[in-house]
Every structure is written in C-alpha cells, then in structure tokens.
C-alpha cells in the first residue's frame, strides 16, 4: 500500500518538475567541461612546442590538470565549481583528482594511516580496480587476436 503511494507520488513529482533543469544542467556541463578541455589543449600545445612527443605531452597535460585540480580542491574552490557545473567538473580528469583529494582532506581527523591513507582510495580505488580489470580483458583479447 505504502509502495503504491510512493509510486504515485513519484509520478506526480515527475509530472510537476519541469524539463528545463536537465537542459540547463547540460548547458553548464558543456560549458565547464569544454573550458577544462580547452585549457588542457593549451597545456598540450605548450608541451608540444617545448619538444615533447604526443604521448608525453598528453601525460604532462593530465599531470598538470590533476595537480591544479587537487590544489583547487584543497582551497575548496573545486567543490563550488562542482555545484555549478555538475558532470562538467566530474567527467574531466580534474574530477578524478578532486575525488581523490576531497576525501583525503575530509578524513584527515581520522589520522594519516586509516584516515588520509585509506580514504585517498575511496573513489580512486574503484576507478583503478575496474580500470585495471577492463584493461586486462582488453589485453587478453588483444593477446590472442593480434
């Protein structure tokens, strides 16, 4: 009975809430995500002009963006950007960096081993785990198919 009521309520909410928030969310995500990638392109072009090859330029770009996002997270600015930008600040690699730094600072009070040390992998852990597993699957297929 309660479940039915909940479902009805859910339907009412869906009908009442306008569609525009999704559009506005997407526009903000597009703008901020696009700007972060454009900054990345600037860094990459700079590295290329300094004589780095494509692969190294790409790695330098990731590292610089990761460190910058980490500092901004420490200052508390990246969180504010996240409230505005949604996925625009989550999907770029800066979002990954934010998700590593943010729990590290947050759980400082629980100590440097089980606080910072463990919580640093709160979100990096799953990303590394499933990233490595899927890279191994790709590797196994590639090993037999190539």
């Amino acid at each position, binding site marked *: 009975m309660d479940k039915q009521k909940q479902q009805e309520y859910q339907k009412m909410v869906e009908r009442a809430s306008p569609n525009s928030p*999704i559009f506005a969310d997407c526009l903000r995500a597009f703008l901020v995500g696009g700007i972060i990638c454009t900054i990345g392109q*600037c860094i990459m072009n700079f590295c290329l002009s300094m004589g780095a090859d494509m692969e190294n330029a790409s790695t330098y770009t990731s590292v610089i963006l990761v460190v910058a996002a980490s500092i901004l997270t420490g200052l508390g600015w990246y969180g504010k950007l996240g409230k505005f930008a949604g996925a625009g600040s989550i999907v770029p690699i800066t979002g990954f960096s934010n998700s590593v730094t943010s729990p590290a600072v947050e759980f400082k009070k629980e100590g440097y081993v089980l606080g910072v040390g463990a919580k640093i992998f709160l979100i990096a852990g799953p990303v590394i785990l499933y990233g490595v597993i899927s890279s191994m699957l790709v590797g196994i297929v590639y090993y037999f198919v190539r």
Partner: protein
Amino acid sequence: MDYIKAFVVGGIICVIGQILIDKTKLTSARILVLFVVLGCILGGLGIYQPLVDFAGAGASVPLPGFGNLLAKGVKQEIDQSGALGILTGGFKASAAGISAAIVSAFIMSLIFDPKEK
C-alpha cells in the same frame, strides 16, 4: 581550430555524463568508474583513438581518455613483453596520473583542513 574541437568534443562527453546523472541517478563515483571502463573498452576496440586524434585534449582529458590510455598501454606492453603485458600494461599506462593524484592529494591533506559545511 584545435581549441574549438577540444571545447566541443570535451563538452559533449560531459553532457553525456550529465544526462546519465539526471536521468539515472548514478552517483558521481559510478560515473567515474563507468566512463573509465567504457573508454578502456572503446580504446581496446580501436574506436576511441580516432576521436583523440581528432579532438586532442577534448577526448584525452575526459575520463574515457584515461580508459583509452589503459587499453593503449596494455597493447604496447603485450607487443613488447608478451603475455606479462596483460598484467603490467594498465598500471604502467596510468602510473603518472594516479601517482600525481594521490601524492598531491596527500600534500593537500597536510596543508588544508576540511571546510566547515
């Protein structure tokens, strides 16, 4: 021109993430995992690399680019050192990004205290 390509392609990848968040209530952690895995699979199939060649940072800065890097690394390692590359490739390719992320996170935790909410 490459700035416009990076802006548009990077923006579109973020919009896909935003639609997933709004429509499916996926948490940001799940989005991160999903995008890296997707990027790795697309990279493995050779679909993602052309996008990187086209859009530069627009495709390599978003997380699927990170996944693509894993796939690329594992293939390179297999070419160089055979079956052992299946185990080492992913970690080697992602080492720079992950080391930078955890070391700078650690330094930030030394400098900053949690913000009052």
